[in-house]
């Protein structure tokens, strides 16, 4: 129990299959994600990357198999998981009617911390502009500034964090991720681009895809 909180967590997935709108996306998926580990989910469009992320954080309930957080099933461990979770979805959760500074304050950041975080993502000078006047890449950076706030959660779940980022932004994000992993955090992300991270493992969801004939779980097969 003397270990710091960040080094104790573990997300385990055993024989997971997910469905969406009555179609099974993948099956037989197993992996472990512990402290200091990073996993990049790959796969064709529609392979179920976002669905998998949303299932793992408890936002989508259509799955079969086991998801364990620190050895406890997700249904019981969900509050604990969410307290250690920082999730940035494809819709990044940046409110367009607020300024970057107000957006970070909405996530509970103190002003000094928020200003420092915005400086880290190269948004210094934009902190008081409305987000609707910023570009797509800048809005993505506002969301990514959450990664630089103090008390950042140990488990990062990032859906396409590199979307709309420029090369310098990608390099800065890789550096931040490496620092997070060194500090005992863990990262689960989807991306189509390769990332330069030593600890990164890759998982291709297309390898676990279900043949189209077996994919339908609705209709008669449910009752047979």
């Amino acid at each position, binding site marked *: 129990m003397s270990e710091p909180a960040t080094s104790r967590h573990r997300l385990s997935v055993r024989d997971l299959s997910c469905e969406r709108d009555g179609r099974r996306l993948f099956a037989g998926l197993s992996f472990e994600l512990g402290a200091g580990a990073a996993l990049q989910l790959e796969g064709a469009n529609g392979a179920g990357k976002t669905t998998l992320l949303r299932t793992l954080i408890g936002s989508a309930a259509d799955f079969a198999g086991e998801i364990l957080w620190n050895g406890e099933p997700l249904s019981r461990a969900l509050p604990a998981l969410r307290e250690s*979770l920082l999730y940035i979805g494809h819709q990044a959760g940046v*409110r367009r009617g607020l300024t970057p500074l107000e957006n970070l*304050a909405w996530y509970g950041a103190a002003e000094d911390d928020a200003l420092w975080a915005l400086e880290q993502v190269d948004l210094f000078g934009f902190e008081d502009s409305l987000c609707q006047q910023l570009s797509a890449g800048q809005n993505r950076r506002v969301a990514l500034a959450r990664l630089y706030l103090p008390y950042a959660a140990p488990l990062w779940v990032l859906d396409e964090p590199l979307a709309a980022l420029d090369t310098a932004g990608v390099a800065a994000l890789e550096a931040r991720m490496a620092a997070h992993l060194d500090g005992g955090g863990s990262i689960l992300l989807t991306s189509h681009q390769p990332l330069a991270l030593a600890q990164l493992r890759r998982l291709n969801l297309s390898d676990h895809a279900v043949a189209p004939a077996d994919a339908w779980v609705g209709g008669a097969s449910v009752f047979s």
Partner: protein
Amino acid sequence: MSSVDRPATAGPGFSALLRVELLLALRRGADIANPLLFFVTVLALLPLGVGPEPELLARMAPGMIWVVALLATMLSQESLFRSDFEDGSLEQLTLSPQPLYFAVLAKVAVHWLVTGLPLALLSPLLALMLNLPAGGYLCLFVSLLLGSGCLSLIGAVGAALTVSLRRAGLLMALIVMPLYVPVLIFGTGAVQAALDGYAYHVQLAVLAALLAAAAALAPLAAAGAIRISTDS
């Protein structure tokens, strides 16, 4: 409450939510003005439609003011959660360790502050325009004050249920209208009783009871509906 000693993952507290919602509402001035303009315009057109006889207008005034206030509230609520749903902040709220109940309550409270409260404040002016007898003013104001709170709370459930649908207006009206009916009946009933010289405290008490029940239950229902809507 200081945010310094709280982890950044804890999500926004109730006062922070309230402040942000108010800020957003004030920045979107048109969203505040639209329901009020609708309210004033429809009631100003009414005498042109039904004729200017003072007795007829006085007879119609309580019901018309209430019905138009109800429609104005409903039209303004269709987009209550829409922009949050589209930019992903609604999903962030569902992931926050804070109960979604308070997030919904904060949104509804701000909606009432910028819609229900101004409607109630404007109502005596429109009552004067429609020649409502003097005995009904206070009752109309108080009944709208209580009733618009109910309408905002109930409407939030409809808005939450339809947030993931593109054209939700009609569906939301179908869901919400039956629930609006008791509020409308007791609201107009109170004003009518006041005009007829009877005690109207009973109707106002029922409205207050409806408000209390809606404040306790509607955010729960809306929170559940949001979880369903974001699970797709």
